[in-house]
Structures are given as C-alpha cells and as structure tokens.
C-alpha cells in the first residue's frame, strides 16, 4: 500500500490529542502498520504541539521529518508557518484560520507574522483555509474545532465517511458524540 504521513500541529489545549486518537483509529482500519506519536506534558500547557500519524506496509520511525508529510493539518496559523517545511510539495495543507498569539507576541517582544496563508499558498498548491472556530461555534461548542478540522481532512481522503464517524463515536465520551458528529459534518461539507 501507499504509505501516508499526516502531521497535526497546533497549540497545547486545542485538542490535538483527541484528534490523534480519532485519526489513529481510522488509520488502524486502513494501514497494515500504523504509528502515532505525540508529546505529552509541558507543551500541553499552551506550547507548540505536534502529532505524527504514519501508516504503510511497515513503519519504523514514528516521527515525520522535513519534506515528508502528505497531509499537514494545522490548528493555528502561526503553527502552520512553523511546521511548513515538513510538508511535501504536493501535500494537502489544511489550515484553521484561527490566530493564537504566543507569549512573546502578547507581551510585545515579537510580531505575529503577516499574511501567513498567502505566503504558504504562494509555494504550495494544495492549501485550504478553514474558519474552524466559527464552524465550531455554529455547532454550539468552540472546543469542537479539532473535529471540524478532521471533517475537512476526511473529505480530502479516499476513506469512507462512515469510518470517520465510527471512529468519533468510539473515541469521544458518550455525552459529546452528537456535538462532535455535527462538528465533523460541518467540516466535511465545508467548501472553500
């Protein structure tokens, strides 16, 4: 089978760990071999976080390196810029248009870079910008940004929708299944 490398990048607290659990569940149903790697701990407190998902016939290193990602799923614009070197030239790059200022920017010691989406679109063809926070709000829970993003990505894979929905049902707590399926649908039906 064709091997696939997916990177999820964002800010600690945005729900990347849940995303990787859902993605891991989907990947398991598709790949002969799967590895998912993430760093827990200190960076979960508002730091830059990254998750790697790799599937293929045989996966050795759980880590994705520069120029290796087939899909770059970015939960925040600045993080998209930080990790852009990890994307292949023809990678599917999905960027939540949300901006979260890091502390150096908040206290005025650094500038938040301008026109990030345009800069990335200049060098990469396959870029989608998603108003995931607005879509999540419309579903009734701003915490569902992560599942909106999964929805957008799901549409751009050849994996059947039902497999994603099943993974969400299995992964999230029962009381949150409905809202998350709604968020998934919002992402899945999003067109730019």
């Amino acid at each position, binding site marked *: 089978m064709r091997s696939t490398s997916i990177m999820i990048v964002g800010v600690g607290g945005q729900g990347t760990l849940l995303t990787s659990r859902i993605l891991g569940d989907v990947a398991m149903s598709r790949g002969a071999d799967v590895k998912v790697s993430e760093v827990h701990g200190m960076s979960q407190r508002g*730091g830059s976080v990254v998750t790697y998902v790799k599937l293929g016939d045989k996966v050795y290193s759980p880590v994705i390196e520069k120029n290796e990602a087939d899909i770059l799923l970015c939960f925040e614009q600045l993080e998209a810029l930080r990790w852009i070197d990890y994307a292949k030239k023809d990678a599917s790059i999905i960027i939540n248009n949300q901006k979260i200022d*890091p502390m*150096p920017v908040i206290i005025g010691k650094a500038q938040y870079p301008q026109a990030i989406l345009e800069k990335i679109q200049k*060098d990469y063809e396959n870029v989608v910008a998603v108003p995931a926070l607005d879509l999540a709000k419309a579903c009734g829970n701003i915490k569902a940004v992560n599942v909106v993003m999964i929805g957008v990505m799901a549409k751009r894979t050849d994996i059947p929708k039902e497999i994603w929905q099943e993974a969400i049902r299995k992964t999230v707590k029962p009381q949150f299944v409905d809202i998350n399926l709604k968020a998934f649908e919002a992402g899945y039906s999003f067109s730019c």
Partner: protein
Amino acid sequence: MKKLLLGNEAIARGVYEAGATVASAYPGTPSTEITEYIAQYDEIYSEWAPNEKVAMEVAIGASFGGARAVCAMKHVGLNVAADPLFTASYTGVNGGLVIFVADDPGMHSSQNEQDTRMLGKASKVPVLEPSDSQECKDFTKEAFRISEAFDTPVIVRLTTRVSHSQGLVELGERESYELKPYVKNPGKYVMMPAMAQKRHVFVEERMQKLLELSETSDLNRIEWGDRKIGVITSGINYQYAREAFGDVSYLKLGLVYPLPEKLIKEFAAGVEKLYVIEELEPFIEDHCKRMGLNVIGKDVLPMVGEYSASLIRSRVFGASVEKLNTIQESVPVRPPVMCAGCPHRGLYYTLKKLKLTVSGDIGCYTLGALAPLESVDTCVCMGASIGMAHGMEKAMGKDAARKTVAVIGDSTFIHSGITGLIDIVYNKGTSTVLILDNSITGMTGHQQNPTTGFTIKGEPTRQVDLVKLCQAVGVDRVRVCDPFDLADLEKAIKEETAVDEPSVIIVQRPCALLKNVKFNGVLRINTAKCTKCKMCMRLGCPAIVDKGDHVEVNGALCVGCDLCTKVCRFNAFERAGEQNA
C-alpha cells in the same frame, strides 16, 4: 486481536498479562500513563505513592510478599528511588519485580537528560529497552521471567518517543500467577553487613549468568542485510537507524545491560564498517571500544538531544534536506504558559511586584520563570525549593531571608518538600514557604495525591491536612490565602517574610482545568474605559493581548477568572455581552 496502543499503555497491558497484582508509582512525564492505564485493570492493585522511593519500596515489599510487582517513574525519579534500587539488587526478589523508567532525551518535559542505562549498570540491575509498543508489552513479560529466573529486579528503560508513540500490539490473555509463598530468610532480605557481604558475591555471580543470557537471548538479535555497514543500536534509535541506513546489517539490542561480547564480536566480524547509534551516553560504544572494536558513534553523532533519521543521515552521510519553499520568515517561539484562569498567576504577579527572590520547584508553577512574570529564580529538582531557600538564608543572612520565599506545589511538597521544612524548623531558619495547593498534580495531567482526598481510582480517602502537618513539624505561623485575593495575599507575604521565624502560607485555589472549577464567563475590554496603561499585561495571561494601539481579550481563550478585573484601576474589563456595564 491487534490494538493501537501507546507505549505506556502497552507496558500496562504487559503488566496485566504477566499476572502482576501490585503497582505503585509517582507521576512524571513521560512515564505517567503507565500507571494510569494499569489503574484501569481491577485485577491489579495500583496506587500513587508520595514519591518514587516509596513507590519502589512498595513494589519491593510486594515482590518479597510473593507477587509480581512493578513501579514506574521518569528518569529523575530513579535518582529519588536509587537508595532502595541499589540494595534491592542485593536482596533480589521473590515474585518478579520490574521497574519502568522513562528517559526524556531532548528534555521535552524535564530538567536534565540523564541516561538510565548508567544507573542500571551502577546498581547491577539488568536493563531492557523496547523499541515500539509491541516490544513494550513483550519485554515487560520477559522482564518478569528474567527477574524470577535470575533473582533480580529488572529495569525496563523507555524514552519519550517509545512511551508516547502508539503502535499496533497483539493482545494476549492474562497469565494466572500464583502468589509465591513468603518464607522468612534474613540472609536474603535483611541487608546488614554480614548478610550483604554474601549477597554481593551472589550479585557478581548473577552478572556472569546475565551476561550469558545477553549472548543467547532473542532480545538481542542480528538482522543481516548489506554487510558493508553494520549498525549496533537499541530502543527508538533502531527505528531511526532503519530509516537512515536502509537495508544494511543490524545488531538490535533489547537487553542493553549487561551487554553481550561474543555476539558483538560475531557481528563486527561480519561487516566492513561498524556504527553505534544511541542517544545520550556512549553506553554501547564504550563497551565496544573496551573490546578493542573500531566503531563510529559519538565522534559524528551528538551526546545531547533526540536523534532522528534525518539527523543520522546528515551526520553519517552528510545528506542535507532540500528546502521546498521560499518562506524565510522567522517564526516567534511559543513556550508553554500558565493557562487562562491559572491560580498561580495571582501569586507570581504579587511576588514580582514585591521583588522577592523566589526559590522554585517542579510543576506547572515553574512556568513563573518565563516572561512576563519572570518571578522564579531557581529550579533544580523535586522538593529543592525549601532546602535551597534555607541554604540561601544561611549563606546570605536573615536580611536576605526577608526578601526570599520558597514556592512548592501540594504534590511536590508531599513528595520531598516536607523534609526541607523540617530542616528549616530544626535548624532555626526563618524562611517563608508558599505551598501552592491547587488540589491536584497539575503538570503531569491531573493525578490525585495525598492532599486531594482521592486515590488513583477516584475513591475517597484520608486527606493530608497541610495546615496541621506544617504545625506538627513546628511551624507556628501557618495561614491560608486565596491567590486571587491579591490584597490579602500581598499582606500575608509581607507579614510572613518580615517575621523572624519560619512561616508557611498555603496558597489555595484549584487548577483552572479541573472539571468542578466554574468561572463567570468571557470578559472583554471596554475601550472607552481602557486607558492603555497595560497593568493587565503584567499578569501574563494568554487571553489578554497587546495589539500595539489597543489591548484586547481573546474570547476563545478567556475563561472569565476575573483576575484582570482586580488589577485594572479603570474597571475596563466587563463581561462580554453586557453593554455599558
């Protein structure tokens, strides 16, 4: 059936399948989930211990009692537990005893980068090193067999990438393990000089037998490929090496202490050029060099940080990575921050305002060292804040003590801060100790501890009363403050640092991420009232952003803790949705 398991989860599964019945641990990234997953098996008694030393002692006792037992910790936790480890090496075991230690190359969440293989060698305890989730489970079960067959504790060494990567694992059934009878045996279990002298002889004999195991065990295997290059490696580095070198020959070591000699010689003789790929210490490399082998290792690869396939490619083959885009922009760093609503924020705001020297400790509150709060002066190890504050006083005098405080979390205080406090009282110090009681062990992801009133299983239990505890060791001045009552907190700190005796302030407010913590709803800034004085920026709240010409609240991050309303002199903060409030 195959399941996708985190390395730490696979360890827990291995503990379960091996029929173990006792597990004790102190949380520490990247080891924490091992015990959290073990706690999901009702067949295994599990607990959070006050520290790693106690955790290991519980596991040793359980082993003496005939059970298969485990303890888990991060690398620096093994320093705390080194005392029991070194002598448990002499006593050996009754039921199998396995110690999980997770190292953190690259220091994602740690204060140093030490290599646990060195402590295995120093204590003469065998060390196994899995390289993926399946091996995490398999090696755990093998570790119990080795422990019982050779009468030794066994260390399973993990690293962050193994602990925190998920891989496919074939699940098995739980072995039925009968508790071994406990037989009184002072020659084995009472390590007084006369007995210990005999046991040391046993340990040296055991090392010879373990060496033989290392030569023949399936844990160490040769994978012949192209013989122009041979790579000796272990753990996660096997995975990186596989990607970097491709189809060459590998000696993959699963039992990394004691290291084999004959096997390494056989492998070396079969290849033209020999590399050793290992993160951190040149543990395998030094062994090879002592054997007179010509190997390439740390002369081209770093002693610090994590490895990766591309790092190996670049250092070994000089391969560089092509840049696929024209983006040259420098990207601002995003260090971790205290969350919006974090109770520590009110405290550090006050400590900075009072210009105090802050002897710091390990937990979320270490983040008080970063801008803009920049309040914490020191951070060395768990519990160190109190002893160091006392040491500063003894070096610099009582005037300095009046300008110094120690800060320590509730769990860290129980872990090893209480002994420092006893030292202050006993040796006539005058330090002021602030116990940051946020009702949980925060940084490692919300574990219960002796001050929370709940066990690892969430069952109610006896709660350590911090006020009474401090009073009992002889601190007469103990008071409790809310860090969001800034006026009261400032008054308390001024009074307690001024007095000529030890004092403790318990700074009490639950972690903002706890489920039962409710705030009042998102705030915003009324621009008509805001004078842009930027007092609120001094809080270092991630939800309050300086936009240059104005300050605004990020509504997606604000939790409505209202701390900013207490520093704003112009009442510019108002509840979002309340017009003209």
